[in-house]
């Protein structure tokens, strides 16, 4: 897994490449928490290059979302591959996370 922190029109984007599993998710957690500690109001996660996610990766995002909600922040996902979308749907998390097709779409919302 590789994490790239990108700025898109002043918004913080976490672009993840590769597999998110119990081995790599602590690094993702660190990136996410570095933003939530600063109470960044809006964080977008680019899923386009995510090849795999397991429950530890999902737990990391649920934890991040819970923290952001305490300060009124928004966590947006975009570019989720089909297989991963199915897992979110099965876990009933498609109703919990804000999910968009693209960064432009996320930005407009």
């Amino acid at each position: 897994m590789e994490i790239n922190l990108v700025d898109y029109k002043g918004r913080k984007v976490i672009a993840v490449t590769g597999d998110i599993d119990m081995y790599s998710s602590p690094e993702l957690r660190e990136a996410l928490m570095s933003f939530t500690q600063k109470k960044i109001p809006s964080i977008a996660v680019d899923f386009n290059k995510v090849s795999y996610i397991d429950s530890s990766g999902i737990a990391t995002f649920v934890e991040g979302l819970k923290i952001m909600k305490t300060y009124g922040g928004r966590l947006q996902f975009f570019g989720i591959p089909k297989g991963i979308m199915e897992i979110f749907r099965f876990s009933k998390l498609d109703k919990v996370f804000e999910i968009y097709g693209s960064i432009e779409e996320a930005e407009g919302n």
Partner: protein
Amino acid sequence: MNNSVVVTIPSHPKYLSVVRDITAGIGKVNGLADSIIGDIKLAVDEACSNVMKHAYKGETDKKILLKYKVTKRSFKLTIEDKGTKVNMENMKGRDLEDIKPGGLGIHFIKRVFDVFELDEKKKSGNRLILIKYLKEK
């Protein structure tokens, strides 16, 4: 025909990717569809993650033994550890409506495997039995 593959890995999370590769490879060699392979891969990862987290409590230099046996009828896998004994009543995921971190692994395993069972005969450690039926009888 002898179609079984046996693998021992250390209980370190970095080996989960190796487990996924092996699982996918065995699925492919036996002609399973990509979507089923994806589901099985996730389930096996979750089962091994659970052994690392719960049975071995994060100790990374213990052993996990996986035995795959694939026939036309079923994809069978047993996962053995020498960690703390667990019983079936404690192997429960969270309520899916109760959104919080954790508690999804067992759901992902049961989503694809028809049989999810602990071998009661195992004296020390645990042997989890996972079976997915590939055809209706």
